[in-house]
């Protein structure tokens, strides 16, 4: 029995490692290919290690010029989205966790539902609206839609953080002579910092990665990074694709995202299913 058990254990471990390999392979393959010249990538058998690789692909991609424009576009949109989202969502979170008011429950309900609405069911109407506002192909147009898309979940996430800080703390500080605003900024705000950082990174990731709305609203030469990256496999459908360059471009877009994501992943997941796990 014990020998059989040990065999089962070893089997489970081997299986787990095989699955780990399958899941990480595409990520590894992207980075690996980004260092290899096209001659190696189109050889009859694949090169599994980037020995003899170089940064040539990255240099070629970066020297194409439109990377800088796309980066700037993405940065502007993302910064505006993160800033406005944090501000709006923070105020709203404060309202729903520290005040009881008429319409509060409906507001929370609306926030939760809106958070679920897919861009696929909305982009047509948003396109028509942004077009009539003459904001197609502008940072402003995309940002408006992004802020509205990210605010609901951020409100929900920040609500948890604000509710976690006892209001008594603030009151104690007020008894000791601080004003209400003073108490808020000296006591509550610093405690909220982790929540704000997590929400900010969430907003960053959403705006940075978004594809659908950007595709619909930016139809000219102005592109965000995801559209720019898509251009690589699209424009080349006529002739042979230089996969090394595509993977270099892909790596450039993905690496900052992976770093940020790994940093805040725990917070975001617990926000989504917290209720269920606590049961």
């Amino acid at each position, binding site marked *: 029995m014990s020998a059989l058990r040990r065999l089962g254990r070893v089997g489970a471990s081997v*299986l787990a490692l095989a699955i780990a390999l399958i899941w990480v392979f*595409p990520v590894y393959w992207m980075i690996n290919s980004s260092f290899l010249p096209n001659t190696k990538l189109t050889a009859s058998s*694949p090169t599994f290690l980037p020995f003899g690789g170089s940064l040539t692909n990255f240099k070629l991609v970066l020297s194409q010029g439109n990377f800088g424009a796309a980066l700037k576009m993405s940065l502007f949109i993302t910064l505006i989205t993160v800033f406005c989202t944090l501000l709006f969502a923070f*105020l709203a979170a404060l309202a729903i966790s520290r005040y009881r008011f008429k319409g509060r429950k409906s507001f929370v309900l609306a926030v939760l539902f809106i958070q679920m609405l897919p861009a696929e069911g909305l982009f047509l109407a948003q396109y028509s609206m942004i077009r009539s506002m003459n904001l197609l192909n502008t940072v402003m147009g995309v940002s408006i839609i992004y802020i*509205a898309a990210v605010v609901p979940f951020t409100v929900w996430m920040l609500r948890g953080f604000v509710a976690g800080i006892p209001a008594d703390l603030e009151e104690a500080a007020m008894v000791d002579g601080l004003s209400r605003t003073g108490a808020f900024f000296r006591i509550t705000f610093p405690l909220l910092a982790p929540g704000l950082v997590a929400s900010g990174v969430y907003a960053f990731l959403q705006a940075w990665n978004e594809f659908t709305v950007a595709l619909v609203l930016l139809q000219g030469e102005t592109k965000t990074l995801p559209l720019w990256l898509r251009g690589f496999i699209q424009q080349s459908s006529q002739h042979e694709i230089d996969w090394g360059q595509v993977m270099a471009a892909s790596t450039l877009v993905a690496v900052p995202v*992976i770093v940020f994501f790994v940093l805040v992943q725990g917070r975001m997941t617990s926000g989504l299913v917290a209720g269920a796990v606590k049961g």
Partner: protein
Amino acid sequence: MKTKTPARDAGRVDAGRVGAGRGPGRGGPGRRGFAWTPYVLIAPAVAILALALAYPVGWQLVTSFKEFGLAQQFGQPAEFNGLDNYIKIVTTGETWMVVVRSVVFCLVNAFLTVAIGTGLATLMNTIAKPIRLTLQICLLLAWAMPVVAVMTVWNWLFDWNHGTINWFAIQLGADQYWHHNWLEKPLSFYAVATIIIVWMSVPFVAFSVYAGLTQVSGEVLEAAQIDGANGWQRFTRIVVPLIRPVLMIVLLLQIIWDLRVFTQIRMLQDRGSFPSQTDLLGTYIYREGVGANHFGMAAAMSVFVLIITIIAAWPYVRSLMKQEAI
């Protein structure tokens, strides 16, 4: 976490409690009447949601009852045609196929993802810590990839000419996969899309379910084992019922998310398959609405997507409201 103070009149919960006996500085005449503060606080959020979501949804509802044809492209105002667009969705072969394909695709993907994710979570629960960490890091890396990067990598892996998948298939002895184009036939196209979507969605499910599994007490399982329950019985009779809430929620979220697979489908179509044969709801609305200006039909399809989403989201939202005692 829970603020269970019973709702008072409008106004700050604790201000009512503490402030009452503390002089006029807090409870001035303005506060006694109507407490504006919470409304001022939610105003910016409400404003942006009304502008960018509520107004478009309203426009969409109205437009879905209108006829947009060639004349409207030359500036004629569109006329109402009642339920015509909705009837057309159901009766036109092409649109109805898109709806059916999308729903089937969504359900298959959601169930596959939850099944595989639950399997991985169970596996994580049985293996030694270093191996578990390795698996978790690998899953996390896959999860962190931006969707556009995911699509470029998988396009490269499935490339008909130099793709690694074809090379692997040939190494395994399946020579017919030399220069095989996976994206040419609709069924194979959807299989590739399913592989990619499951790959990118499983980590979320695995981590969520694993978090649920760690809450299942070992004593209960031990007791069951002593009573003679085998591994499978312990899993189906004890573990699954205990983690049911988590499973339900990830399944619902997955259904909602898999209905919105625009980027994945669009970027697989980029590599030269026929959109008319491979469209799902998102890409169809894009082609019809933004591409061809058939706003009426596309709006009706969008409304359809929203309705399915709201139906699927309802139990999830209700459970969140209940758990957090809102």
